[in-house]
């Protein structure tokens, strides 16, 4: 990696430890193969097997405070750990419990909630999914309509969430819901719901490359107890905002992107790609170098020059656009071969059960169109950066 020459001795030793761990304990079956790169959230079982290997060192919660079971790594070590995993093809660790709910419960949870929920996240007993978006509330998340009505000792939830990743796997869901009909600041609340509660239905959504990653989650008179609110009633927006912003330090995409570009380069050499193609590779290589550096210095080292303008927002825009460009190069290299990447049977678009069967490298191109949409669209990210800029340069 390009920063290796500048590492201090202790950090270089740590990097060696990470590499030894990956080489020694992540068996070949775990390491990403071709088809696994079709989307960032890969195979559920494989992702969890990887977490099992990280768990003894608490490297799956490396960024959590030590008092809550975190590994106590410093910012640079956390970066090296995540970078190398991505570079070597370790499965993408699902963030919903480990990176989103966990730290949010640490911040807003009662002692009882922390005691009940955090160990189950660390141990892998609970798998979470995110109930935020609705058909009427995407970029405008505050416009949620799913309503949790106070009835006596309980809240009763009615509504529908959409684009819910992993709802088909998860046993728990966190939701932003409306607890007051008026459109006031205190109208929203944050709730934690068991997926096996009576009244919950999960409906799969098939995307354009055939993958079932996303779902609708329907709530029909779903009852929860007041203890299932996270933070006070009416505080939902603040809790959600925190959750969406705490991704800092939890992700490193540089290694993963570098691995994907390396595969394009290998293929391009095998296929003797044109000089024009190599020019595109060179430009992307350079932009990826810049991204790796930005990700490290602003998000993980926090040189103090960064966050005023909205580091997490900038980084989201950059990695999502780079991953799309990598997929474009892969597609360009494939040429007419991509037309023959057909489902079974080969003379149909849909298979017997309505399935679409695209190979991973082609699916990736289509699936990663979501990268600039999900997690706050890149247009919204630009709005947020502008707002920060105004505040800083006032």
């Amino acid at each position: 990696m390009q920063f290796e020459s500048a590492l201090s001795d202790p950090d270089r030793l740590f990097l060696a430890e990470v590499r030894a761990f990956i080489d020694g304990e992540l068996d070949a079956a775990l390491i990403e193969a071709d088809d696994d790169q079709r989307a960032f959230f890969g195979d559920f079982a494989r992702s969890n097997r990887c977490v099992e290997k990280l768990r003894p060192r608490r490297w799956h919660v490396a960024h959590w405070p030590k008092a809550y079971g975190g590994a106590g790594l410093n910012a640079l070590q956390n970066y090296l750990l995540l970078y190398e995993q991505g570079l070597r093809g370790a499965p993408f660790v699902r963030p919903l419990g480990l990176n989103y709910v966990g730290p949010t419960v640490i911040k807003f949870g009662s002692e009882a909630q922390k005691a009940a929920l955090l160990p189950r996240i660390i141990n892998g007993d609970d798998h979470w999914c995110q109930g935020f978006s609705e058909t009427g509330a995407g970029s405008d998340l505050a416009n949620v309509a799913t309503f949790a009505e106070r009835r006596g000792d309980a809240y009763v939830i009615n509504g529908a969430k959409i684009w819910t990743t992993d709802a088909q796997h998860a046993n728990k869901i966190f939701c932003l819901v409306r607890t007051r009909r008026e459109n006031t600041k205190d109208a929203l609340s944050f709730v934690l719901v068991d997926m096996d509660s009576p009244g919950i239905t999960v409906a799969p959504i098939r995307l354009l490359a055939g993958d079932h990653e996303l779902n609708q989650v329907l709530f029909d008179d779903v009852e929860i107890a007041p203890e299932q609110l996270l933070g006070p009633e009416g505080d939902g927006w603040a809790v959600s905002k925190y959750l969406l912003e705490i991704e800092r330090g939890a992700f490193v995409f540089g290694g993963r992107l570098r691995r994907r570009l390396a595969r394009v380069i290998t293929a391009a050499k095998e296929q003797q790609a044109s000089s024009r193609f190599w020019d595109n590779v060179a430009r992307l290589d350079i932009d990826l170098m810049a991204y790796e550096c930005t990700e490290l210095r602003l998000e993980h080292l926090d040189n103090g020059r960064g966050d005023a303008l909205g580091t997490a927002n900038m980084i989201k825009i950059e990695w999502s656009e780079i991953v799309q460009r990598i997929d474009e190069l892969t597609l360009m290299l494939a040429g007419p071969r991509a037309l023959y990447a057909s489902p079974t049977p080969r003379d149909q678009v849909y298979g017997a059960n309505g399935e679409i069967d695209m190979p991973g490298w082609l699916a990736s191109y289509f699936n990663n169109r979501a990268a600039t949409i999900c997690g706050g669209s890149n247009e919204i990210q630009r709005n947020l950066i502008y707002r920060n800029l105004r505040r800083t340069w006032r």
Partner: protein
Amino acid sequence: MILVDTPEHDALRVHATRFASDRYDLSQHRERLEAGVPVIRQTWLEIADLGWLGTTIDENNGGLGLAYSFLSVLAEALGPALMNEPFTSQVAIAGHLLNQAQPSEPRNTVLDRWLAGTGFVALAHHEGRRGSAGSAIATTFETTASGFVLSGRKTAVIDGALADHLIVAVAAPNDFGLFLVATGSSGLRIDGYRTFDGRHIADVEFNGVRIRQDARLLFALPPMDVVDECWSLYALLLASESLGIVQALLRLTHDYMMEREQFGQKIADFQALQHRLVDMVLATTRAESMVELARYQCDELGPAGAAAAIAAAKVTAGTTAAFVGQQSVQLHGAIGMTDESIVGHYLKRLTANEILGGNTDEQLTRFTRLREYPKNSENDCAGN
């Protein structure tokens, strides 16, 4: 430490920023250009007195022996001043060559005067119509009893018109050398030009120029490797200077958008323009990252070891500079097109920085070669 400015870097940045703002403003810049003043000798002497010329010169050569990143920080901080004094080219090229050359009477004399700010030195390397890095060296030298005779023609010699001495790259059968030549030498003809942003280049003709034996500079490394290091260093400093300028342009453009009103509101209230400004911020952040990466890798590995990172930094800075420079004019509207506005002057300086030291096309070629990407032009599709 990775990618972190030390307190010394920060102090130098602050000092250089104040030095520049105390001495430079746009109206004086335009007055000097209109009056045809080449450089302000007094300012150059002040820069020399501060020790900045000797930043990376070895201590036993009379310099400060500091890391290359300090030069990069200086270039960045001085960028917005639109200096016509040739700081970046002199320290990256003349300074590095003289420092790396082995001691000799001529070299020591020239280096001492250069460090004192009383002499400029220019590298005469490129040839051909385009004066670019790719052209072969046809300027030749003949060995005589007392020394050498130089014949040939160099183009786009940076600082050529200012120089008291040239360092000339010359070829002979199975030989290659760098020679120190006084610009007053008989047979040497210099045609000086001002670039559109106020800097100095020249075409130089050598018609049987006689020089002494000790005019040949000797190096521990092959001379062309040292020359290559100079070009890498120069590219790094140009990228650094452009970074300083785009940072200033961002701020200027934002401030203008907050002032300018049309359709009953500040133009900064239009979302399309907000997003444009944010895209300029993103581009600037990329350039910051690459310049930081390149400057610290240059410290770690030297200009040769950091060559790929430096080429990448110049590509990034060039791409960012084009976008931010162009869009700064765009967002200023017609005002940005006038000679009176500093925006246009910044665009001209950024554009010259893109061309000098190898443009993006050349840097990409260099990067591709250093990364060992194949050159398979025979597989290029027959396009329409």
